[in-house]
């Protein structure tokens, strides 16, 4: 699809910045119609209802202005492709450095993107043959994701590659060739992601490429589908992680209620009643387990309280007063605790907003710098070239905008400097951006 070509994350011209991250941003932009694309590609079943999964309804919408307007759609930043650089395409860390031993703790709850060995070992030392493991990933990925989808029954995927481990080389090539489709699929996977946890894994091609692009991007929480150990795990539950929302939980609770309560309800029944696209029985199962625990926990602790209750009733009045005082003290302690917690919460929110602001403004600054260097580059080119070879920029407005932009950049720079010297409220205010849109110099 051509969407990628039409997208520009920033108005900045090509720059000294490494190409990779730029590509990520571009690929990573969610297209509003990416779901449409996904449908076309048969990645999502056409009857999929717009699930509550989708996060752009503000459930988990970040309040900040993100660099891409679409980022709210994405819960996961799956590693984007960067097949434009085939030389980096397969992330091959030749390192076998045992010197950098990195104890990655294996947690049963988290799904590590690490090689299977890592997730099982207490220590993750870089081994020789990391290369091999990485090549193994696509394999497992495909296996897992295909299995997952076949179970889901609503994916249309090529499955012929499943049992041909030796084909990984071909896959790698194929992946590289699949450039143009990459971002879309990944994008689709991302958007549909919330709905279809398995879709994510389903996008076969992207997944191995996720491995590739890992060098630059954090990987998605959904990608885990890929990282289960080899073939034997084909029968094991796919550990794709799902992000629950309040709406989803509501649907869950309703389903459980319809089935007669959490004791009676079965995962299968709940799954069927919920009618949510992409959710698997394993998600429901584990959620049900948690639900049961939460439901009965107060009753479990009831015992100790229950026993205390009768003495309260029987005691003479002055003892009741003592107990009353005790409970007053408890309440006071709780109040204090609550106060501290509230305070911390408040401060954390402030801190978070600041962090976002900082990054956002840093980004803007960077764009401006890029622009400026782009201008300078263009100017130097102009100087060097024959006056007769006038570049395409015959627009006389350029001069004016140049000065304006440079001025703005200077302001921004000094603001940044000022900022570091003068900590205070005005720290995070950038000067107003140039009134003219930054021009693209190509």
């Amino acid at each position: 699809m051509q969407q990628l070509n039409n997208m520009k994350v920033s108005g900045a011209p090509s720059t000294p910045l490494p190409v990779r991250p730029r590509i990520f941003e571009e690929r990573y932009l969610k297209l509003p119609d990416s779901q449409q694309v996904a449908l076309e590609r048969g990645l999502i079943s056409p009857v999929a209802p717009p699930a509550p999964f989708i996060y752009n309804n503000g459930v988990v919408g970040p309040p900040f202005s993100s660099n891409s307007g679409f980022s709210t759609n994405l819960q996961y930043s799956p590693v984007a492709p960067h097949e434009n650089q085939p030389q980096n395409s397969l992330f091959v860390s030749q390192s076998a450095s045992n010197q950098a031993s990195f104890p990655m703790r294996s947690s049963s709850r988290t799904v590590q993107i690490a090689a299977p060995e890592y997730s099982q070992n207490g220590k993750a030392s870089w081994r020789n043959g990391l290369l091999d493991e990485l090549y193994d990933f696509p394999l497992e990925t495909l296996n897992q994701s295909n299995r997952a989808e076949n179970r889901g029954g609503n994916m249309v995927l090529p499955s012929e590659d499943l049992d041909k481990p030796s084909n990984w080389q071909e896959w790698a090539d194929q992946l590289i060739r699949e450039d143009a489709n990459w971002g879309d699929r990944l994008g689709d996977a991302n958007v549909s992601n919330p709905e279809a946890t398995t879709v994510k894994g389903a996008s076969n091609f992207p997944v191995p490429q996720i491995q590739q692009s890992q060098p630059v991007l954090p990987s998605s929480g959904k990608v885990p589908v890929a990282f289960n150990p080899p073939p034997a795990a084909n029968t094991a539950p796919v550990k794709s992680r799902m992000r629950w929302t309040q709406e989803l939980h509501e649907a869950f609770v309703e389903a459980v209620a319809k089935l007669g309560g959490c004791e009676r309800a079965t995962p299968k029944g709940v799954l069927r009643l919920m009618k949510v696209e992409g959710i698997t029985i394993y998600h429901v199962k584990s959620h049900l387990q948690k639900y049961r625990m939460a439901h009965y926990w107060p009753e479990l602790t009831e015992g100790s309280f229950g026993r205390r209750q009768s003495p309260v009733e029987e005691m003479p009045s002055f003892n009741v007063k003592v107990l009353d005082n005790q409970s007053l003290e408890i309440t006071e302690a709780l109040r204090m605790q609550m106060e501290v917690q509230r305070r911390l919460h408040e401060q954390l929110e402030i801190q978070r907003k600041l962090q976002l602001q900082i990054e956002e403004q840093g980004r803007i600054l960077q764009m401006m710098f890029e622009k400026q260097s782009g201008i300078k580059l263009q100017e130097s080119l102009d100087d060097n070239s024959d006056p007769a070879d006038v570049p395409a920029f015959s627009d006389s407005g350029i001069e004016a905008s140049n000065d304006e932009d440079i001025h703005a950049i200077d302001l921004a720079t000094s603001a940044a400097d000022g900022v570091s010297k003068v900590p205070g409220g005005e720290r995070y205010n950038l000067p107003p951006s140039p009134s003219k849109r930054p021009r693209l110099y190509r």
Partner: protein
Amino acid sequence: MKFGKWLKQQIQETLPDWRENFLSYKDLKKLVRLISSGPMIRVGATSSKAPGKAEAEFVYLLNGEIEKFNGFFMEKEEDFIIRHKELKRRIQTVIEKWGENGTHPSAEIYKHEMTKIRKDIVNFHGEMVLLINYSNINYTGLAKILKKYDKRTGGLLRSPFIQEVLRQPFFTTDLVSKLAKEIEATIDAVFPLRKPESTSTAVTRVPVAEEGIFRNTVAALMSMQEMRKGSSTVSHFSLPPLNLPDSDLPQLLQISSPITIP
């Protein structure tokens, strides 16, 4: 090293189950050092790699960490969603049954049940706030290690990478924050009105000894203040100093040394 020490302290103060899920800052720092000294030294495979590959390795590890955060965070978030609803349901049930206008009004039982609920609510709120704190700490750590990396290797990894981090589940804490705010609102309904005599200004220091949510929260708040006092490397990417409105509150809470559990 300041952050490293600070992080270590945070981990120590945090809830035991959580300790494994924090950023492996120290190890990553070691790796950065190794990478930056790479070109000079011929020993070890890391250093003999091209810078691109060293970076790839570094990013790989970072991704693993982020994966870890995401996993832990989402587990907890799911728990919170469930518990939030359950708490609301419990409150509703108690009010409907034993409340004044309930089916079986009973001041005794109402009070009793409410006491339990209050405790649960406060602890629940505490856990949620601590999760947000967790998110924050790890984000800070990532930002710092990336900054170190760029500084040492002259790379340009930090900015784009951090942009992606901002979109990760573990950083997008909006839902948890929303739940916490709802609880804060509910608390007022559930707690009795404050008696006048208990608002005396001369409050003696309350020892906060045992491991637990309260301790963790206090520690977090105090160390946050400490952390943001300003450092030698303050830049326009640094946070301003933390100004707590009633900054005497943390001082009232004296944290004694933790009780170590063998």
